[in-house]
């Protein structure tokens, strides 16, 4: 990693790089794995420094984060907690590899730069207060116009089965535009199956509710 490139990354992270240079660097990031990894470390460290509540690290990434934090002892006390894999999602197979980390790292900086929890804190409309599933009184949302800083939901480290993929794709054709985009995006970004995984005849496992 040469010093100039390092400097550019730092400037990009701090929003001090000229837009044209940003674009060039972003393109390079998309194809340069070592650079992508370094970019990710900037993102993580930056998030920890800022103590951004929205930043949670998925399990595969967490190991890499720990390594980074060991190298940055001053930050270790602020390391983000690990996410826990939900046990209820047996329709997906657990991910054996850690191929996702690079992808997460590469983009998280973009999110950090475009997502300001402080700004969101002013905009995140609070909806009805939590309770067991039952309709809330009409007008509950009107009471909930205070704003809170969003927190992420724990990630499921899972892979969709072919059967569920079929359902998702078929359903997507009947979803409103924004919801449809969200649904398909989530499907695209669910973690990949381990190499060599064969689709079983029926990989739908049942689990008591």
């Amino acid at each position, binding site marked *: 990693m040469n010093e100039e490139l390092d400097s550019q990354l730092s400037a990009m992270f701090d929003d001090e790089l000229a837009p044209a240079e*940003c674009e060039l660097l972003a393109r390079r990031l998309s194809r340069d794995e070592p650079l992508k990894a370094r970019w990710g470390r900037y993102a993580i460290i930056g998030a920890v420094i800022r103590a951004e509540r929205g930043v949670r*690290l998925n399990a595969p990434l967490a190991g890499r984060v720990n390594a980074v934090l060991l190298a940055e002892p001053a930050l270790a006390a602020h390391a983000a907690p690990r996410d826990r894999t939900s046990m209820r999602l047996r329709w997906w197979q657990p991910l054996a590899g850690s191929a996702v980390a690079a992808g997460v790292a590469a*983009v998280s900086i973009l999110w950090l730069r475009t997502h300001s929890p402080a*700004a969101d804190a002013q905009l995140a409309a609070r*909806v009805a207060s939590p309770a067991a599933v039952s*309709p809330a009184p009409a007008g509950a949302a009107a009471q909930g116009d205070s704003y809170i800083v969003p927190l992420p939901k724990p990630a499921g480290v899972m892979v969709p089965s072919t059967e569920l993929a079929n359902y998702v794709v078929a359903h997507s054709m009947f979803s409103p535009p924004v919801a449809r985009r*969200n649904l398909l*995006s989530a499907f695209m970004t669910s973690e*990949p199956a381990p190499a060599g995984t064969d689709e079983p005849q029926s990989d739908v496992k049942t689990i008591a*509710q």
Partner: protein
Amino acid sequence: MLRPSRSSGRAAGLALAWAVAGAAAAEEPALKHIPDLTPTQWLERMDQALTARNYDGTFSHWQGGRVEMLRIIHRVQDGTVSERLASLDGSGREFIRTGASLACYLPDRRTVLVEERPAEESLVGFPSVNDQTASLYDIREVGHMRLNRRETHVITVSPKDEYRYGYRLWIDDSTAMPLKSQLADAHGQVIEQIVFASLTLSSRIPDTAFRPEISTAGFRWLHNDAAPHLQPGSAGLAWSAISLPPGFRMTVRSAQTLPGSAGPVDHLVFTDGFASVSVFVERQSVPSGQPPVPESATVGSSSAFSTVVDGHKITAVGEVPPATVRFIASQVRAQGVASAGR
């Protein structure tokens, strides 16, 4: 790896073209600021923009602490919708829709799912936001702010009960494209976020933009039966829900064959005008001595729940909380058939 498309002189104004850091964007000259729209009208404009415009953009998708970059290309040409959604740095999966044909490339499973839908279903109409929707959600504009050097209207859609999710949408003032969107659960916590890093609105997108990047050599191809199955009931049964969450109603009931599926699957769609839930019904062979056990799953912010009713597997999928799909799936029955074991 997909590359962001370059601007060309044929693009209509090249309305939006950001670098990652938000480089200056050129306005599309044909679109002007439209003042004094209600929040509902902004949502309608946004839906119209998402479904009727040609665009090519990259965006970050954040969910559960994971962030990944995707590219979306959307084109409407001579009444035919083409769309391509691809994961740029993760699974490598791609979804490509060309008219009535849907193809889902799953390189991690070395599988391609191909579904041919009946032509009449190739352009699905969406329920518009109406008075009923307004009774289920509190829709308001909560701000007007700059995002990536663009002026946006921030619209919140807050549910009035816990059967649905809420949205926060940063809608571009001049193009009505949602430059950023957040999905919030009943606690007001963001569970999914999409932010565009680059977006180009073009008058023309070539056919080559809708070809997969990945090599499919050695992949397993699963096709469905191209013939339409419009009569309801895989076994001559008419399935419906005996009870639904407030505001939901059934808008579609058809039968179709899914890729790799042994037989037709009944497909019911329920919507409240903003959220939708699909219910799939297919015959289920349960080994003797093993009582059917319900199961649940999530895909990002969407939920799925499966149970067995009268020898049929009922699976509900939708961009709603888990309890909602569970509720709907548990209410599905075949008309005129007494439910066994309940």
